[in-house]
């Protein structure tokens, strides 16, 4: 299968500290990949580089066959606007915009705001009836679902989730994972960064990071489609 993302000998150095040390990783199109590891293992750095929010100190990043590690900031902005959907642990909803408006913000920067489409995205995460609520009126799980709706609205090639269930209880965690499953079936490439085994173990492929290096990379034998 074709690679969507190729990381070649990536290192990232903050001050004197090596957050990532000569890491190489390929992500295939349509794959559901979990990146796991304890805190300080370099997960967040990995996530930033995969999401094109940051550039590696050395090494190359190919996205859809194109080398993006030397691109300018503006080109990178365009890239993660057009091809990547982000889901955060802290949700990061704009607190003065209601659910549907938060989704529309992503459309606004991507192409054209369309309330109907945004409502459909909310429907896909089961939140159509909460569309006019402000983030403060939504539960944590609901906020995270708005965040996912925002991530999928522009039909990205890659959805990148950073500890998506870190602030959620079990019931909400399951709802979120169900949505991921559905997205995976629809053919979306998913990269989930997490330290939670329950979230990691449902992925198709699991990569384990420690001290900035990949210590294991295996297909999940328990993966059920």
């Amino acid at each position, binding site marked *: 299968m074709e690679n969507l993302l190729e990381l070649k000998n990536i290192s990232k150095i903050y001050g004197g500290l090596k957050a990532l040390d000569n890491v190489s990783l390929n992500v295939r199109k349509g794959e559901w990949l979990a990146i796991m590891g304890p805190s300080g293992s370099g997960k967040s750095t990995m996530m930033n580089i995969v999401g094109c929010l940051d550039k590696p100190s050395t090494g190359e990043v190919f996205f859809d066959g194109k080398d993006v590690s030397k691109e300018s900031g503006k080109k990178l902005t365009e890239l993660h606007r057009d091809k990547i959907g982000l889901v955060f642990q*802290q*949700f*990061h*909803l704009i*607190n003065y915009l209601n659910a549907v408006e938060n989704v529309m913000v992503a459309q606004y920067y991507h192409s054209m705001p369309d309330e109907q489409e945004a409502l459909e995205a909310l429907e896909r995460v089961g939140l159509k009836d909460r569309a006019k609520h402000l*983030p*403060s009126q939504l539960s*944590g799980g609901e*906020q995270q679902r708005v965040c996912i709706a925002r991530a999928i609205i522009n039909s990205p090639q890659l959805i990148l989730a950073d500890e998506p269930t870190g*602030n959620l209880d079990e019931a909400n965690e399951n709802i979120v994972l169900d949505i991921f499953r559905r997205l995976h079936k629809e053919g979306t490439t998913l990269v989930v960064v997490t330290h939670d085994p329950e979230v990691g173990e449902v992925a198709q492929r699991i990569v384990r990071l420690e001290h900035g290096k990949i210590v294991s990379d295996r297909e999940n034998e328990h993966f059920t489609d």
Partner: protein
Amino acid sequence: MFFRMVKGTFIRQKKKLLMIALTVALGASIATAMLNVMLDVGDKINEELKTYGSNITVVPQSSAVISKLYDTEEEDDDAQTEYIKEEKVGELLTIFWANNITDFAPETDTTVTLNNSEVGLVGTWFNHKLEFKKKGSVYTRDTGVINLRSWWDVESGTMLNEQAVSGDKYAMIGRELAEEKNIKAGDIITVSRDGRNEELEIIGVFESGDDDDNMIYTTLSVVQRLTDTVGYIKKIEVSAITSPEDELAIKAAKNPSLLSGDEYDLWYCTAYVSSICFQIQEAIPEASASAIRQIADSEGKILEKTELLMSLITFLSLIGATLGISNLVTSGVMERSQELALLKAVGAKNGQITFLVLTEIIFTSILGTIAGYFLGYGFAQIIGHSVFSSGVEMSGMVAFIVSVLIIFVTLIGSIPAIRMLLRLRPSEVLHGGH
């Protein structure tokens, strides 16, 4: 632990607290500068109003009334006029409000013959060095008409400087008279009266815009010799800084003895023109002092208006300053809701959190207020020097008012934020992202 928490927030929130301190400092500096200027503006404008000349005249108790307008009547004046002893002039500086007396000059006027026609001659002090006794010590003070006739334009020659010339045979002449008699600066004229003659050198020609343009001004001693009244004077012009008249002053002006004891004390210890006149009469019993209404009333009116104007402007700027401060305190505290919610989540009680927040804010405000006070001092001095060419007197009261105001405003500004904090549920904030 508490102090470690406070210390912790100070280090972590350095920027935020610095901003609050900065705003408090700005607000405090506005308040300090404006209050000081407001409190001092009366004195400053009062000094400026001294350019209108004297506001009190002192004449002998029973001086004759009929005088000057018609020259013919001057002849028998001397017989009726009583005099004040010249040595008594220094007594002016012993009264309660002596520090408010900015200038004064004794005067004796008469009519003399100059080139076969009669002209008015005024003898006075120009810039006399007066020695006077107060509480047993001897002081000196420069005083005279130089400052009491600030509107004079010296058209040719110079103003007579008594201390720079030797002897007393000098004079200044009014413009119209000088033109009429064709007298220029540097000329020597002879004036005579009752067979006594004086030769005077004209030092300068002045334009006054009033009757003085037809007069000659000379040193007091010349006129005393001409009128044979050495050691005596006819009148003293006094320029004093006064407070605007109010009801008490009006009541007192009618008859001070009708005031109650307290009213009398208040009146006596306020720089009303009437109480200064009263004190002058106490110091020089043979004299009668009265306000020159044209000057004294107008001064009062203008002072009152200026002070009112300044106090309203001050009021507006205080509102501005307080709003600015309470604004920033509110938003500063609100911004930290997440951190404070964390404290709540780990079991801190509402009271403890409130105490923590208030301690930080008040400590920051105190630092800001101190900085702001000195900044405001600077602004007040800039205002004073650029407008009045003299510094603004700093009142200790202002420091007190400003600190109370700032503490009050800071607390008021913290109220909405603290109320919000107390309502806060930790889970919401920590999960809510913002």
